[in-house]
C-alpha cells in the first residue's frame, strides 16, 4: 500500500534512471534531507553534536567507503584506521601549508591523497584473496601508524607528536578549531556526507558498481566475461580510500581537533568501522548509515544507563559495555547476518501489502 512499484509510471528515460525510481523512496529521501538540513541544526547543542551527530556523520562516511570495498567489491580490508590517519595527516599538512585555501578543498584533496595510498596497498589484492588479503591490509594499518609516529615532518616537528587543527573558516564561519559552534561542525560534516552518499549511490548502481559486484561474486567468472580485475579492484580501493580519507580528515579536523595517531586511528578503529559495515549490511548504502548509527548510539546509551542511572564505577561500566557490545554483535550476526539493511528490506516487503494483505 505505502511502498509500491505499481502505478508509478515513468514517461521519460530520465525519470526511469533517476537515483530513487520509486516514489516512496524519493519522498523519504527528501524528508530525511529536510530534517537533516532544516530541523536538526536549529536544535543541536554541543553535547548532542559531539556525542552523537558529528561522530555519526563521520563514521557514516567511513562506513560507506569501507562498504564499497568490502560489500560491493568483496575485498576485505582491515586497514581503515590507517587510511583514516592518512586523511587526517594529509589535511593537517595542507591546512598548515596552504592556509589561504578553503578547508573544504583541503578535505577533498586529503581524500585524493588517501585514494593514492589506498591504491598502493590495494595492488596486492590482485594476487592475494580472502583472509590473506584481510591480514595483508593490516600491513597498511601498522605501517602507516608507525610512519606518522616516527617521521616528524608529518606532525610539523611539534614537541608532543600530536597534530592540532588550526582555526579555519568557510564563508566566514569557523568549522575547525576551538571556536567552532556545534551547528557549524554538524553542517560541515553533513554537507560532506551528502556529497559522499550521492556519489556512492550513483557509482554503485552504474557500470562501475556492477563491475565491483561481478568481481565480488566471483572474480574469475567476472574476468572471463570481460571485467578487467586490475582496474576494477583498483577503482574500488581508490574510491573507498577517498571516502575513508575524507572521514579521517573530518574526524581529526572537525571532531577531535587534536589527534595522536596510535590512539585515534589504531586497529580498534578499523574493527569498529568493519562492524558498522557488517551490522548495517554488506553492499548497502542505507546499511552503512544504520550500522554507524547503531554503533555510535549504543555506547552512549549504555554509558548513560550504567554510569548515569545505576551509578556504577566508570571502569566497571567500560568493561560491561565491552561485554554487551561484543555480545550484541554476536547476537546480531546470528539473528540477521545480512544486517540492518535486510530488516529494512523486509519491512518494505511488508509495507507493500500492509494494511490490505489481499
Amino acid at each position, binding site marked *: 500500500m505505502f511502498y509500491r512499484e505499481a502505478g508509478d509510471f515513468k514517461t521519460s528515460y530520465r525519470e526511469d534512471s533517476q537515483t530513487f525510481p520509486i516514489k516512496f523512496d524519493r519522498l523519504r529521501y527528501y524528508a530525511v534531507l529536510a530534517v537533516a538540513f532544516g530541523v536538526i541544526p536549529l536544535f543541536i547543542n554541543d553535547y548532542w553534536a559531539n556525542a552523537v551527530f558529528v561522530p555519526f556523520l563521520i563514521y557514516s562516511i567511513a562506513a560507506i567507503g569501507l562498504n564499497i570495498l*568490502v560489500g560491493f567489491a568483496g575485498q*576485505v580490508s582491515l586497514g581503515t584506521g590507517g587510511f583514516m590517519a592518512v586523511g587526517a595527516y594529509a589535511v593537517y599538512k595542507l591546512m598548515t601549508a596552504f592556509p589561504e585555501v578553503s578547508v573544504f578543498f583541503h578535505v577533498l584533496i586529503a581524500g585524493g591523497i588517501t585514494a593514492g595510498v589506498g591504491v598502493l596497498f590495494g595492488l*596486492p589484492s590482485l*594476487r*592475494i*584473496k*580472502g*583472509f*590473506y588479503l*584481510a*591480514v*595483508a591490509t*593490516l*600491513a597498511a594499518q*601498522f*605501517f602507516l*601508524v*608507525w610512519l606518522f*609516529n*616516527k*617521521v616528524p615532518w608529518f606532525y610539523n616537528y611539534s614537541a608532543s607528536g600530536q597534530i592540532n587543527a588550526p582555526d579555519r573558516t568557510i564563508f566566514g564561519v569557523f568549522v575547525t578549531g576551538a571556536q567552532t559552534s556545534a551547528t557549524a561542525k554538524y553542517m560541515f560534516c553533513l554537507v560532506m556526507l551528502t556529497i559522499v552518499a550521492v556519489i556512492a549511490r550513483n557509482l554503485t548502481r552504474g557500470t562501475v558498481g556492477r563491475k565491483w559486484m561481478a568481481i565480488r561474486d*566471483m572474480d*574469475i*567468472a567476472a574476468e*572471463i566475461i570481460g571485467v578487467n580485475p586490475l582496474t576494477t579492484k583498483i577503482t574500488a580501493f581508490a574510491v573507498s580510500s577517498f571516502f575513508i580519507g575524507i572521514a579521517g580528515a573530518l574526524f581529526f579536523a572537525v571532531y577531535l581537533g587534536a589527534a595522536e595517531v596510535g590512539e585515534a586511528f589504531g*586497529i580498534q578503529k578499523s*574493527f569498529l568501522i*568493519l*562492524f558498522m559495515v*557488517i551490522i548495517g549490511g*554488506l553492499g548497502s548504502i542505507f546499511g552503512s548509515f544504520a550500522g554507524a548509527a547503531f554503533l555510535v548510539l549504543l555506547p552512549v546509551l549504555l554509558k548513560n544507563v550504567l554510569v548515569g542511572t545505576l551509578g*556504577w*564505577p566508570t*571502569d*566497571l561500566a567500560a*568493561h*560491561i*559495555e*565491552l*561485554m*554487551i*557490545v*561484543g*555480545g*550484541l*554483535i*554476536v547476537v546480531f*550476526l*546470528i539473528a540477521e*547476518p545480512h544486517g540492518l539493511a535486510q530488516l529494512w528490506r523486509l519491512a518494505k516487503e511488508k509495507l507493500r501489502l500492509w494494511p490490505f494483505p489481499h
Partner: protein
Amino acid sequence: MPDQLLFAMEVTLNGLMAGVMYALVALGFVLIYKASGIFNYAQGVLALFAALTLVGIQQGQVPFAHLINAMTGMHVSHFGWTVPSVLAIILTAGVMVGLAVIIEKLVLKHLVNQAPIILFMATIGLAYFLEGFGDVMWGADIKKLDVGLPQGISETVESVTDSIFGYGFFIDNLDIVATVVAVLLVTALTLFSQYSKQGRALRAVADDHQAALSVGISLRFIWILVWSIAGFVALVAGIMWGSKSGVQFSLSLIALKALPVLMLGGFTSIPGAIVGGLIIGVGEKLFEFAIGPMIGGATENWFAYVLALIFLVFRPQGLFGEKIIERV
C-alpha cells in the same frame, strides 16, 4: 669473530626464541581454521582470559568481585587461600574446555553455513565479549603470573658461548622453556591428529565437512574438541607470555603478532605456523637490529606484516598452505 657478527648471531637466536612464542599463538589459529574454516580472531583474547583465570584461581580471587562490590556495597576480593600451580593449571584447562562448549552451543551452532566474513566478525564480537568478561571477572589491573618457570638470563648459555666465541650470549631462560614446551606441544598435537581416532576425525572434518558428516562424524563434537584444544594452546601461550610480561590487556594483542606468521606459513599448516613463526621472529629482530636505528626504531610493529605481504605476492597461499585452486 667480529663483534657485529656475534651480535647478529645473538639477535638471531633471540629471534628464533621469539618466533617460537609467536608460533605458539599461531598454532591455535591454525587448529581452528583447519577444522572449521573459522578465522578465530579471539585466540589472543583466549590466551589473555586463560592467563587471567589461572592467576585468579592461583591467588584465590573472588570472581566478579568488582561487580559484586558495586552492586551490593560489599568489599570482597580474595577467598584467602592460594592454589598450587599444577592444580590451578588443570582447573584453568577445565574452564577453557567449558568455555569451548559454551562457545559452540551459543555461537557456532547458529552460524553454520554462514559466509567466512560473518564467522570472522562473530569471533571479533566474541573477543570483545571475552575481554570485557575477563576484566569484570578478575579485575583489569596488571597481574604477575608465576607458575615456577625459570626466569632471567640463562647462565649456562652465557658461559658456553663465552668459552667458544669469547662473548656471552644473553638468552632468557623462559624463552628456552617456551621452546621446549612448544616442541612438546607440536609433537603431542601431531601424534594426536595422526594416531588417535578423534584426531583422524578431526582431519576428516578439516578435509571436507560434508563428507565427514556423511560417514558419521559428529561435527559439533569435533568443533568442541578443536576449540578445547585451541583453548589449551591459548593457556600455554598465556602462561608463557604472562610469565614474560605480566598478565594485562596487551596480552591479547599477541594475536596481532601471530597473524603475519599465519600468512607466511599458510592458514592450514601446523608446520607452517612453526616455520613462519621462526622466519618472522628472526626477520623482525634482525631488521630492527640492522635497519631499525636508521629509520627511527620500533619497526617490529609492522615489519612482520610487510614481510608477509611481500612474500604473499609471490606465493599467495603461504609457505605450506594448500594450493588454491579456483574453478568457475
